[in-house]
């Protein structure tokens, strides 16, 4: 008697293709596959059940990343009591069903189908780039095809023209079997709907947009189609050039805060391609154009791999050994300490580096430098998230995992553009929106989500830049005044006194949509409709980005969102929450790792005697109890002549920070600037020591993504610099008199776990076993915490905060009548140091200024003209693009190219609580010019 094979998701080898997606039904059914009983969730296809039972059925049009399609007719089966030979991919299992997957009749049918496919396919297997990695080839073998009776003289598609327009993959239509896997991947996985089947019958062909080349189509180059293609029709150019990979290493992407897991596929030490990992907790097998394709910068000729020093920033760089560079840097810093005191030096950690690399930098600053002058690039992006969520919920992190969005009924996207900046999460979100969730967008721009194929925002509150708090106060006013507060949740979970104070405040007439309409530019009726939709949807989820934080009231806005979530009971379960979409791969991690000048690892204040004593004991050094300086304070202090030395890990503050003239003046005033980076970036112009950094392909450690997921970063290749970044930091620390003798990155994580309650259970061993975990991970949550604040808030009761709207000082005037706001584009990343050194420049070779037609016309500017953009901080020039994505009175640009100098014009206004710069509001004027560059 056969044992029943139970369906156990945890036991499945997810690297295998089960043909159709998994089902989540609670009811289970048992079927017999070739006599073997298998129990699976109701709705599971016969194909999937058979694969679970180990009886893989031949298939071509089926793959488990997309819904069954039933077109190739190769997966036919016989079912007892049923006529015919149904396709197993589209046939759901029924209890008691008895299936045969291999019979003489099925063999004959499958062989016939394969004959037809092969009769219209080039017989060039030996020279085909997919040789050895081709499902058509595999299936021909699986069905035992030995000859094709139809010859090759008939009508065929073998003369199809190859589309080479995309820089990363080719589209060879002669090899296409029209299985539609690419079309379905584009629709179902990516949600772009750029591909279709053009023509009918024998003339049916895959078509990007309206039979355009890929590069000119709506394709976003996520590569889902390439991954889904069972033949060499859609093939990575790197595979064509280098051949099929021979080894694999699992690692984590180093672009945005989604933190996609990848399988790096290599030949020797050379990366052939990056394939998104189906088991990746953040991305579940999907990726974007940056993660999948734009990794070439790691091998770019601009990489600096040898340490360099120079006496002054006017002198030429001298290549030196690691030992000489470390000695030079240590001597300089020790001399500054001796002459000007320990507070004359400091460090900046990087959100691009691993947790372990960040940890050792902040430890070096606190223990070897002897100061708390350590800050991180999160200062200029999500520091208000840390402040606002800690005040209200008790910890500085988003509340949900990404998968939670699949359970949201109303999704509020505020100041974020997920399709460009967090594209893999955007695909998840769009899937839920296509299923019917309501979308509320609060943004000055008409971002893609507002209207794109099969997704549109029911509510777009197109506010004026700088009025976020006013709009959210108005939303909450409606909820409070129309009886939409979740009283039970508030009574059970929140601090009563703070709620009462907030309720009294938010119900004030001055917070009504009508009162604020003139300030925000949003019609009161629209605000009321959006508020009602959010409060009554069931599960309301808030997702936000830098359009929330990079304002003078960034922290206030974060607290306003937390208030809204608590007031509507949208915290502590699937489908809800307050979710920051973090900009860089390890923003969450760099903040977690004690990079802020007032906090140790795990967000514990340096003035806490118990915590400080614990660190002092483990680190063997007395630690300071006063906060150190933030980045802007360090820069100010440098200009005033008191701050003399700065260690900068993987951040280009001369390009990324606001008011670059001030940054340049501060860096120039210092006696020693140490830059640790991949490239000689803009900041390196002011450096005295350059320590070469490692790319993510060379790192060993962990990144923590926006959902608090700690992912392993594994070395795919040996370090091109000869050592790890953490080793370089430890060497400098030792040279300054404080040894940090770690043997491995794993050992650093062990120390982090020892010192940090929320990381207490984390180790490389655990991550290797589980794939990833979301902190808190400790005795109470040994496998991590996907959703926070389930039964109680980290701080106990949720704390409401009143959030009066305070207009920014940065307002449009007669001299500067337009409001500039900034953002990111899909193909480029931040200051472009990585993506500008890849073929992604084909999509965005320069930053452009988007301007409304009316504003352009009033200034005599046409599409493509050069303009000068002037603010009270400075001037720069770029070309304009007339756009109806922005309202009149607002202009928009990106900051991916240093030549654009976008941050020359941004001001030093900042968030009141955290000094996060107000990048999103700069009053400017533009005028047409003929010259592309300033004289």
């Amino acid at each position, binding site marked *: 008697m056969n044992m029943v094979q139970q369906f156990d998701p945890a036991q499945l080898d997810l690297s295998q293709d089960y043909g159709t997606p998994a089902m989540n039904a609670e009811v289970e059914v048992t079927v017999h596959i070739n006599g073997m009983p298998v129990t699976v969730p109701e709705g599971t296809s016969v194909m999937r059940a058979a694969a679970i039972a180990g009886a893989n059925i031949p298939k071509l049009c089926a793959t488990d990343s997309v819904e069954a399609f039933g077109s190739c007719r190769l997966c036919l089966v016989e079912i007892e009591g049923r006529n015919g030979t149904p396709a197993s991919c589209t046939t759901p299992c029924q209890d008691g069903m008895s299936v045969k997957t291999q019979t003489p009749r099925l063999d004959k049918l499958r062989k016939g189908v394969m004959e037809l496919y092969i009769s219209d396919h080039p017989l060039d297997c030996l020279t085909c780039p997919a040789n050895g990695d081709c499902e058509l080839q595999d299936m021909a073998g699986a069905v035992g095809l030995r000859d094709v009776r139809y010859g090759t003289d008939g009508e065929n598609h073998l003369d199809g023209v190859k589309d080479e327009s995309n820089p990363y993959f080719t589209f060879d239509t002669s090899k296409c079997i029209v299985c539609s896997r690419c079309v379905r991947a584009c629709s179902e996985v990516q949600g772009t709907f750029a591909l279709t089947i053009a023509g009918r019958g024998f003339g049916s062909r895959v078509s990007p947009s309206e039979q355009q080349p890929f590069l000119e189509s709506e394709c976003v180059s996520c590569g889902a189609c390439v991954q889904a293609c069972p033949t060499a029709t859609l093939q990575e150019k790197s595979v064509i050039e280098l051949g099929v990979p021979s080894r694999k290493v699992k690692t984590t992407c180093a672009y945005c805060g989604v933190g996609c897991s990848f399988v790096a596929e290599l030949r020797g030490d050379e990366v052939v391609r990056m394939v998104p990992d189906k088991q990746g907790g953040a991305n579940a097998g999907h990726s974007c154009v940056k993660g999948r394709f734009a990794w070439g910068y790691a091998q770019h000729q601009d990489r600096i791999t040898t340490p360099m020093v120079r006496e002054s920033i006017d002198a030429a760089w001298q290549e030196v050994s690691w030992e000489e560079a470390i000695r030079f840097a240590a001597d300089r810093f020790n001399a500054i300490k001796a002459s000007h005191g320990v507070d004359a030096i400091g460090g900046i950690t990087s959100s691009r580096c691993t947790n372990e690399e960040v940890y050792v930098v902040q430890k070096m600053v606190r223990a070897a430098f002897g100061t708390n002058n350590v800050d991180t690039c999160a200062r200029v992006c999500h520091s208000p998230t840390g402040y606002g969520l800690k005040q209200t919920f008790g910890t500085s992190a988003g509340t949900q995992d990404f998968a939670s969005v699949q359970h949201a009924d109303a999704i509020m996207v505020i100041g974020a553009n997920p399709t460009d900046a967090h594209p893999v999460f955007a695909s998840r979100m769009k899937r839920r929106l296509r299923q019917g969730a309501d979308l509320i967008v609060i943004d000055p721009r008409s971002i893609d989500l507002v209207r794109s194929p099969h997704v549109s925002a029911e509510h777009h509150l197109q506010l004026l830049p700088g009025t976020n708090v006013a709009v959210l106060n108005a939303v909450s006013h409606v909820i409070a005044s129309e009886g939409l507060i979740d009283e039970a949740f508030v009574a059970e979970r929140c601090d009563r006194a703070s709620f009462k104070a907030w309720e009294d405040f938010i119900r004030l007439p001055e917070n009504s949509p009508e009162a604020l309409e003139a300030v925000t530019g949003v019609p009161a009726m629209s605000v009321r409709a959006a508020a009602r939709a959010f409060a009554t949807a069931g599960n309301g989820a808030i997702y936000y980005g830098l359009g929330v934080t990079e304002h003078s009231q960034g*922290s206030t806005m974060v607290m306003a969102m937390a208030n809204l979530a608590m007031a509507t009971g949208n915290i502590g379960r699937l489908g809800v929450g307050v979710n920051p979409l973090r900009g860089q791969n390890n923003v969450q991690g760099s903040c977690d790792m004690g990079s802020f000048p007032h906090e140790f690892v795990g967000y514990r204040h340096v*003035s806490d005697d118990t915590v400080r004593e614990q660190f002092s004991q483990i680190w063997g050094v007395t630690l300071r109890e006063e*906060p*150190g300086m*933030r980045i802007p304070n360090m820069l100010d202090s440098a200009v005033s002549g008191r701050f003399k030395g700065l260690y900068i890990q993987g951040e280009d503050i001369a390009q990324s920070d606001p008011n670059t003239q001030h940054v340049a003046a501060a860096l120039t005033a210092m006696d020693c600037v140490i830059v640790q980076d991949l490239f000689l970036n803009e900041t390196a112009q002011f450096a005295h020591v350059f320590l070469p950094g490692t790319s993510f392909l060379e790192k060993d450690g962990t990144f923590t993504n926006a959902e608090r997921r700690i992912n392993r970063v594994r070395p795919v290749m040996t370090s091109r610099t000869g050592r790890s970044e953490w080793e370089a930091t430890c060497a400098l620390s030792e040279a300054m008199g404080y040894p940090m003798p770690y043997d491995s990155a794993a050992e650093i994580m062990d120390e982090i776990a020892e010192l940090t309650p929320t990381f207490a259970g984390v180790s490389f061993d655990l991550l290797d076993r589980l794939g990833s975990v979301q902190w808190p991970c400790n005795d109470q949550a040994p496998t991590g915490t996907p959703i926070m604040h389930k039964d109680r808030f980290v701080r106990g009761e949720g704390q409401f905060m009143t959030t*009066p709207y*305070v207009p920014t000082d940065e307002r449009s005037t007669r001299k500067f009548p337009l409001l500039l706001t900034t953002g990111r584009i899909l193909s480029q990343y931040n200051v472009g140091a990585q993506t500008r050194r890849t073929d992604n420049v084909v999509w965005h070779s320069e930053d452009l200024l988007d301007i409304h037609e009316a504003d352009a016309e009033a200034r005599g500017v046409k599409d493509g003209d050069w303009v000068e953009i002037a603010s009270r901080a400075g001037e720069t020039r770029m070309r304009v693009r007339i756009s109806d994505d922005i309202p009149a009175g607002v202009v928009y640009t990106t900051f991916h190219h240093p030549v654009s100098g976008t941050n020359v014009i941004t001001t030093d206004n900042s968030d009141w*609580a955290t000094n996060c710069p107000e990048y999103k509001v700069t009053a400017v004027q533009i005028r047409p010019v003929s010259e592309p560059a300033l004289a």
Partner: protein
Amino acid sequence: MMEYHQEHLVRMANQIAGGVPSREDVAGQVSHHMQQFWTPEMLKELSEIAVNTPDCIDAEVHAALAAL
């Protein structure tokens, strides 16, 4: 005539006074915020500015400095 960094310090302090959530006990909130996030050197310098050029500093900030 204040230097740039001093003007920035004053602007930060005044902005904190305008930004703290509650309008009750603003000085107490400002004082707490500064103790949490400012270095002793910054507090000392602001106190000196408060003495030398008191008009540039909001009343709540003066009260916060007095409470430190």
